[in-house]
């Protein structure tokens, strides 16, 4: 029997994801489809996708710098009518977000890294980390214009 729910994206999920382009993009597609079904605009979906992918890529690039390549990161997402919540937890030692220099100052503008956090903060409504710094928690509140 075909599953009548098969064409609907689950509005929440918890999964371990590998450092694999297709896996990350498939997850992005899944979250975005659920956000679309929940009525979020294209601009909102762009913001959420960018932040989600940025968080995962950053977790592997920085958090897992000293870990085996096949180590996974844990991703949780919840898409609700008024907000979207994403958590990405890596298995690394964590970092202090306040130690990340402002990448937009003139002396840092030509540096090749350090922009991920800035972008996540710009696109999401709220971005926090756990105390040990290996988990990023992001919330996107639905703009009033879309409600």
């Amino acid at each position: 029997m075909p599953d009548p729910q098969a064409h609907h994206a689950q509005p929440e999920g918890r999964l371990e994801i590998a450092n694999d382009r297709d896996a990350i993009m498939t997850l992005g597609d899944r979250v975005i489809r659920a956000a679309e079904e929940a009525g979020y605009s294209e601009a909102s979906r762009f913001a959420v996708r960018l932040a989600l992918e940025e968080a995962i890529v950053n977790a592997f690039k920085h958090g897992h710098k000293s870990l085996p390549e096949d180590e996974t990161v844990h991703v949780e997402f919840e898409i609700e009518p008024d907000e979207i919540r994403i958590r990405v937890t890596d298995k690394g030692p964590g970092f202090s977000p306040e130690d990340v220099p402002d990448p937009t100052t003139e002396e840092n503008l030509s540096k090749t890294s350090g922009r991920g956090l800035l972008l996540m903060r710009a696109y999401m409504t709220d971005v926090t980390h756990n105390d040990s710094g290996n988990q990023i928690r992001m919330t996107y509140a639905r703009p009033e214009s879309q409600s």
Partner: protein
Amino acid sequence: MASEDSRLRVSVEDGVTRVDFIDRNILDEANIKAIGEELNQIIESASQPKLVISFANVDHLSSAALGQLISVNSKVREHDGQLRLADISPQIYEVFAITKLNKLFEIHETASDAAGSFG
């Protein structure tokens, strides 16, 4: 540049090299590294390269992709060349604006505008 694994489409006209991305999402390190290596080959094969990178196919990019573009820009300058970016959608342009990289790169509306801008 036409290898099966190529992540770029490259064309040369009137001494200007135009590069288009094949991927719609320039995301992960492996992908970005491959793109960087291809671009480096292009830059190194020309003296004073004139390079236009078109984002016409690109829906998403990560901060790691921005980092690679900065490396490409430095490499082009080392070779006394010039780099222009073009065909950037409003959503992607916002990423450049937030990071203030719209000040670092010379960005044109279209690839033909960019090609016409070289002195």
